[in-house]
């Protein structure tokens, strides 16, 4: 309905090496987010490719989590939050009133900063999503989904003998992998991760990073991180946020070696933060 307009802040990756087919999974145009009067995201436009890891970096409070939460409409749970502009997942406008949030969230999964397993057994944690979406017709099918998800999350070997134990009894790193297993159990296409390793020790972090690298084959992954090293290790694309705007988005290697913008350069070299 709108004629193509000039998007001043639209930043598209310039020939990112990781982008094989040139197909974008998530696209956002002129997104603004307000918390009451506070303008948290300004005119943000971005194209996020499928089957690649995109890292969001930037100083604290710059709106990384806010934008991430727009992609699966988790901001709906905050009464003061208002989102304008359009965000599409697979070319479908997700803020269209006709869209079903339930289905959107099944398709766009999320892993939180602090592991938040439900106070249920390990099995029930993973089976939760498939149950509410009716993905399994029988108990054996459900068992299969649970096993497959736990295997993908690299947790199966550690928990296969104690599936009935409470998920909250696992270590922090295991809990976070359980949350990832829980998210993949509903066959999402996009997985959003908000600082998934910030509560973990280096070894557990390495496990999760390996896992993210494996999951990249099948999913579009967006990860918020405060660790530049982590962004460099796991992502193919990096987006730099500053004061609610997207400053630069592009190939991770180039971003860390030859950023286009001075602000990115300053942030990466630790001159502000």
């Amino acid at each position, binding site marked *: 309905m709108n004629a193509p307009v000039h998007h001043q802040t639209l930043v598209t990756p310039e020939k990112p090496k990781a982008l094989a087919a040139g197909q974008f999974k998530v696209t956002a145009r002129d997104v603004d987010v307000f918390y009451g009067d506070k303008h948290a995201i300004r005119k943000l436009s971005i194209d996020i490719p499928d089957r690649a890891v995109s890292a969001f970096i930037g100083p604290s409070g710059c709106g990384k989590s806010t934008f991430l939460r727009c992609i*699966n409409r988790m901001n709906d749970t905050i*009464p003061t939050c208002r989102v304008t502009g359009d965000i599409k997942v697979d070319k479908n406008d997700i803020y269209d009133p006709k869209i079903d949030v339930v*289905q959107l969230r099944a398709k766009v999964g999320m892993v939180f900063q602090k592991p*938040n397993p439900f106070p249920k057994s390990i099995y029930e944690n993973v089976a939760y999503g498939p149950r509410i*979406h009716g993905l399994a017709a029988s108990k054996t099918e459900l068992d299969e989904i649970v096993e497959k998800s736990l295997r993908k999350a690299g947790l199966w070997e550690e928990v296969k003998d104690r599936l009935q134990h409470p998920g*909250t009894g696992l270590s922090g790193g295991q809990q976070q992998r359980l949350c990832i297993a829980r998210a993949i159990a*509903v066959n999402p296409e996009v997985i959003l991760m908000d600082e998934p390793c910030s509560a973990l020790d280096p070894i557990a972090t390495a496990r999760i990073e390996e896992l993210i690298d494996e999951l990249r084959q099948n999913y579009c992954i967006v990860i918020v991180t405060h660790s530049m090293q982590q962004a460099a290790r796991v992502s193919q694309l990096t987006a730099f946020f500053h004061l609610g705007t997207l400053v630069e988005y592009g190939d991770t290697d180039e971003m860390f070696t030859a950023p286009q913008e001075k602000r990115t350069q300053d942030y990466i070299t630790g001159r502000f933060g």
Partner: protein
Amino acid sequence: MFVWTVLLIVLMAAIAYWAGRTRAAGLVTAGGPRLHSLPSYHGLFTAAGAMIGGLALAIAGALAFGGQSVATPVAAVVGAGIGAAPLYAKSSLDFRARNNFERIVLVLLICCSGVAILTTIGIVFSVLFETLVFFRSVSPIEFLFGTHWSPTGTPPSFGLIPLLAGTLLITVIAILVAGPLGLLSAIYMAEYASPHLRSVLKPILEILAGIPTVVLGFFAALTVAPLIRGSGEAMGFSVASESALAAGLVMGMMIVPLISSLSDDIINAVPQSLRDGSYAMGATKSETIKKVVLPAALPGIVSAFMLAISRAVGETMIVVMAAGLAANLTANPLAAVTTITVQIATLLVGDQEFDSPKTLSAFALGFVLFFFTLVLNYIALRIVQKYREQYD
């Protein structure tokens, strides 16, 4: 003399505080070593000595010369002086007044909880003792399993069963009313109502908890009971003018705020991260409440129910007025029944011979009641402990 004694002890303590503090402050020389404890701790320490010494001698004086004698306040002043002096003398630059004062506070705390516990134990044992006296004239078997209760009859009979049945019947009715009402309104308040609405609703519900039970009692007897009788008879049931249903309904209203307010707090205490986790999986609000929030809150909700049940079992006023005195053994909510608490109240109203089985039976009933609530509280405690660490 009592007032004078108390005032003098307080005054002596204040003086001791001031003296101890001043002395400690005077110990510091410019550029010299610092005090180990702040001067006010030296003051408090000395004052504590004055208090303890004063109280001890005042009590001794009152015992020796009688509370009305002038000797008592004099003893208090002397005692305060004796108590404070050695502590006053103790203060030096590196005297640990802070640690010592805290030790005194600790002892005080232990004494207070000791008093509370000893009182409880004392009450339990005195009730137990009188119960044993009662069992000398009435056999425990007859008391526990007898189905007929008429303490004033000739010969009197003391069968607990009808009272127990009446208590249970009314409690069950109350919980059937208050459980769903309280829990569902808690869910509404905690999960659906806007913060503004919640801040209005919750106090209103809590006002209901503040209505004296006497008022609820005559409301039950004068308004609810006739209403039930009228509508029951219109439908062709025979309804006693004082019915278990009337008492149970009003008692249910009494415990609604207890359940809803506690459950609301408990539901609110479920971490938001669990809800977020569930929403992020694509669960709807009601799925999230049913499958994540309520299970996580369950132990707390169960203990809220247990507390409400203990309240209902121990409640007297409403049942006295609305349920009647007839010890019928029935499960019919439209009949008049009586409860343990009602019988205890009626047994002890009026002139009593203290050693008659009739009076003593109140102790036995009290003991049963105590045992009943104890078991309920124990169950609640166990449930809470079992599930406590489930989240966070």
